[in-house]
């Protein structure tokens, strides 16, 4: 397996995992961050 010149699955996993984390954060932030701004507390 060759991933942008990298062959070790562990190293590839480090990069892919990092990008997946960012994708999750963006999706979570967009979905759970919707709503009114003025809500101060639950």
């Amino acid at each position, binding site marked *: 397996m060759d991933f*942008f*010149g*990298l*062959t*070790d699955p*562990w*190293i590839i*996993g*480090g*990069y892919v*995992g*990092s*990008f997946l*984390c*960012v994708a*999750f*954060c*963006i999706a*979570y*932030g*967009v979905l*759970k*961050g*919707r*709503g009114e701004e003025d*809500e*101060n*507390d*639950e």
Partner: protein
Amino acid sequence: MSDGVDLTVFGTMTAVFLVVTLILGWYGYKNTRNNEEFLLGRNKAGPMIIALSYGATFLSASAVIGFGGQAAVHGMSVMWLCLLNLFVGLIVAFLVFGGPTRRKGRALGASTYADLLGKIFKSKGIRAFTAILIIVMMPIYAAAVLKGGVNSLAVITGLTEYYDYILIALAVIVAVYVVYGGIIAVMYNDAFQAAIMFIGMVVILIVTYSYFGGVTAGNSALDGLWDQSIADLGSLGVQEGFNGWTQFSDFGSKEWLTVVTTFLLGVGIGALTQPQLAVRFMSAKNDRDLNKSLIVGSVFMLAIVGSAYTVGALSNVYFIDNHGMTAFEYISQMGLGTDFIIPEYILEIFSDISFGDVFVSLFLLSLVCAAISTISALLHTIGAAGGYDLYTLWKNKKGHTTGDSQSVNLNRAFIVVIMVLTVVYCYLMPNDIIAKATSVFMGITAAALLPAYFHGLYSKNPCRKAAIASMTAGTVVYLFFALFVNAGTSVFLPVCEMITGQKVLFPDSVLASTDALVIALPVSILVMVLALVFFRHTEKAAATETS
């Protein structure tokens, strides 16, 4: 080091930077009307400021030059630290700890991390212990970050004879805006500094891959290096089990243990219990803002650490091509430590391109930003632990009052004292210590506080005795392993050498390469669980007897 820093360009950029920093310090000062606003600035920052402030505080110069240098030595396996930074330091921290910390902090009226734990467990002892842990351990971390930043700045600019002046100037600048502007100035400056770091690190990544002819070409070149290298691991700064810069080391080998337990677990897990980061959660207006801040925070974190670790590893290709040596060999023959690999690489690679001076200056400014964004947050946290937490406890004990201290000036005075102490530490600490000092601070806070913090946030009836047992076990075991067993951390305080005559108790054992956190945290968790079972059982038995 290589010539290449245009002091006029760097001086101009620094002057503009300082003006903006002081303006933001002034903004913080004008918006700080009481002690709660000085300590927490609740509702004063939106999701963008929280995200950038959290990221810039979390990622110090240690992440860029300390661990970037380690990536140059140990290779791309350090990218797992980037993954852990994102997963544990951001996702788990925000989703598991962020919301409950904010809500409990608000409900209990807590203004600091020690205050929060003390109020959750209704324990002055826990508040005092946490504050003392912060005051004792955090200045070491702050000094390591300050020393690392100043070292790099002095060496890269060629102003080593002005090292003392640079150190003191940087300390004074940070102290001024933290003392006057409190947490508001700290957070707004963090965000400004984060923006500079972001631009600097992204430019460096792009230039690096452009130099090697693209991502695949660069990675393939690094992959091909290992076969050409001399197999003397000692000269490469690595240990038995190392398989090259694009391969993970052999499972269970000394190299694997060092990378996984010290760099990955020590720093990755330790991020969860950082008092200076928990305050960012407590400053948020609502949980929605915390969720929104994940968007910017994750992109920022990936850009900074991902760039630093990737560029660090790839620098080996550059140094082999241009000097016939790996990054570690090249920097070692210059008499410098691994913390200088990234700065030296930046100086050299930008020397032949257009606007190289501007980019080098931008990188230097990014380093300064990375250092002072972390130091300012640490300084503020230590100041609050002394001027607010310990003073409140002392005042209450003397019977002067039962409430929390409202004195902003006392916090300010304590911050000044700690800044002086931090500068003194800089002269006492060994060189090349940034990554290890970061690991020690994060390790001991995690071992001592993580199980109790988690239990306190999620239990409806937090058990004080179990928390105290877990904190005690975590601290004692961590200190023992750090000072007597782990070869990397025993250098901080050579107690073992003074007592036994040898640096660590088992120098040839795998334990010498195992980070103390790997032993201390499970012990701390186990003690917490056992103590909870025991004390809950005792409480039930007592309740049955009474009824």
